[in-house]
Every structure is written in C-alpha cells, then in structure tokens.
C-alpha cells in the first residue's frame, strides 16, 4: 500500500489543487511556503517594510479570492510572483503620483532604508550592511524593468524561463535585460563609491 504523502512533500501545484478542491489547510501551507520569499521580493522592490508586508497580504488575498483562476499551464510560483510584482508596481506608481502633489514631503525612497540585520560578526555585519546599502542605492537608480529583472534573477534566483513568464517578455529579451541591468548596476556602484 502506498504511503500517503505528508502535506509537506506536495509540490506547489498539488497544494493549490487541493486548495481549489476546498482544503483550507492547503491555503495555510501556501502562505507558509511563500510569505517570506514574497516579502523579500516585494521589499527589494518598494524598499519599505510595511508596504512590502501589505503587498504580500494583498497577494495572498488575491490568491484566496481567485484560486480557480490558476491553471496548471505555468508553475504556481510564476503565478504568485506575477501577482506580487504587479501589486508592487502599483504601489510604486501611486508613490510617483503622490510625489507630484506632495513634492515637499519626503517619500519612503528619500528616507534611510532600514535594512534587516542578520546574524553575523560585528565587523562583517558592518561591511555587509555597507555593501547592501550601496547596492540598494544603486538599484534604486535603475529603471524599473532592469530592477525587476535583477531582483528576480540575482536575489530570488528564478530561472530565465520563470522570469520570462512573470514579466511577460520573450526569453531573449529577459537575457538581454539581465545583462544590461548588471552592467548598469556596476556603473552606478562605481559612481556611488
């Protein structure tokens, strides 16, 4: 007799199928698997922790409301990352529009970015934070489509195919965009130094 699979060994696609069938615990499993990953992705995008958490909560709410919209044509991770990316872009757009009316008021991007401190040696921590801070400053200067590509590739470590599906661009465009984004990032880092 085949041993029943533990829910933790199900693939993402199997878990969403169970959720579509009415298993609410499957939704909890999705939240557990993706909450931190999406938070880090959204944070690198909007550079504000509170807004990043709002984006992730909105993402899960949309997944809950539109569970039946997912079809197993693409990977589940592609689907959920696409939702998060679109929500993060909406926040950036709203922020840009707010800036037009309230240009005298500093938006989140003008504030000092509050980076999380990891468990590292004091000296290394300073060096890492300095580097991380510099990289974030340089990333802020990148155009939005470059920043998206480099976050998905170098931070989230998604494949070229997945990135192509998330941003809706051909594979060749994705490869070219990542290449140009990395070169541009180096130029910005040199200027910051």
């Amino acid at each position, binding site marked *: 007799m085949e041993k029943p699979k533990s829910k933790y060994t199900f693939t993402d696609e199997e878990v969403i199928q169970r959720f579509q069938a009415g298993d609410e615990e499957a939704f909890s499993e999705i939240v557990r698997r993706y909450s931190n990953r999406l938070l880090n992705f959204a944070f690198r995008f909007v550079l504000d922790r509170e807004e990043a958490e709002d984006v992730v909560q909105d993402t899960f*709410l949309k997944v*809950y409301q539109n569970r039946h919209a997912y079809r197993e044509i693409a990977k589940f991770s592609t689907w959920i990352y696409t939702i998060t990316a679109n929500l993060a872009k909406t926040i950036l757009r709203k922020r840009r529009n707010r800036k037009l009316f309230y240009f005298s008021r500093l938006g989140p991007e003008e504030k000092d970015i509050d*980076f999380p401190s990891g468990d590292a040696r004091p000296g290394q921590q300073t060096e890492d934070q300095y580097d*991380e801070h510099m990289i974030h400053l340089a990333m802020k200067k990148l155009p939005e489509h470059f920043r998206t590509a480099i976050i998905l590739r170098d931070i989230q470590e998604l494949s070229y195919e997945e990135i192509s599906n998330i941003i809706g661009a051909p594979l060749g465009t994705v*490869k070219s965009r990542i*290449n140009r984004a990395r070169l541009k990032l180096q130029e910005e880092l040199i200027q910051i130094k």
Partner: protein
Amino acid sequence: MISCYQFKNQISLYIDDEMNFQKRTEFEGHLETCPNCKKLLGAITATKARMHNFNTLSVSAGFYTNLQNRILADRNARIRAARQKGFSFHKIPSFAYGFAAAFLAVVVVFMFMKTPPNAQPGALQLPVAQQQIQKAPPAIPEAPVPPVVQAPQTRYAATTQSPAKEDSSVTGDALNSPQHKENLQDLQQRIKTVKDQN
C-alpha cells in the same frame, strides 16, 4: 577572437552558465588577454554573490492574524453583497451614464438641426394649409348687375304718375350718407350703360 563589446554583451550568459563549450572557450581566451574585462567580470560576480547573501526578511508576528482577519472581512462583504437584491443605482456601471448623456446630446442636436433656417426664433410654424388660409382671399370679380325692370302696372298702382313718396320710415341720415350716395351713383351708371347697349 571576441571583442570587449561582444564580451560585455554576453557576460551574463557566461556568469549564468548558459554558454556552449565553444563560446565559453572564446570567452575565457579573451579574459586572459583583457584585464578590464576580467575586472568587470569579477565585480559583477561579487555583486551577484552579495545580493544572494542579502539578509532575509521574515514576516512580522501579526502577519498571519491580520491576513486571516482580512480574508474573513472580505468573505463577509461578499456575502452581504450577494444578499442585496433589487434595483440599485450602484449596480449601474458608470459608463452607462456617459452613454446616456451622449445619446441625449445627439437627439437634442438632431432636433435643433431639423428646424428650418428661415423661421424666426420663437415664431410658431403653422402648417402650409393654415398659412394659405390666413392669406388674403383672392379678388372675386364682381358679378354683372342685371338690368332694372319696371314693375308692371297693377290696379293698385297710383293713378297719377307722382314720384314715389319717400318712405317716412327712411331716415334722412341714411339717405344722405356717403355710402348710400355712392351706391346710388353706381347704380345710375350701370343703368346708363345698359341703355346705351340696347
């Protein structure tokens, strides 16, 4: 042998191990001869490694509770919305009002353009038949006056040819009125004309 320009255009493929063996060999050959491209490759690789090791965030303690509350609130709102029945202006999409306004404007313009250009503003336009009736009637030619015929003598006629006595009932004002005199003159003229013809 590839150039620095070609090297830069394909550096990501090399870093991400997306090159075939031949291309990779050409790439590494260029690296050995070009210190600038070698430095660039080192910088990009180091940045990529630092980004991979970024401190990772975790969701806050209240994240799951907040999410649960939001899902419940959304579910309750949907149930409430489903219970509302009947007509409501809120159900009419906003673009429907725009279409209605545009249709009304077209009708008004059409009605306005249908008005004849010669009409005075505010004047009531009568149908053609009524306009004809209101015009002055055409001049009717006067009918010829029949000749005056003397009344036959009867036994009751007066024996003497005396002028007819004036009817005492006829007032002096009526006889002397200009209208009466005009009519008399006209009659006399017609009698004369008939006699001449005979």
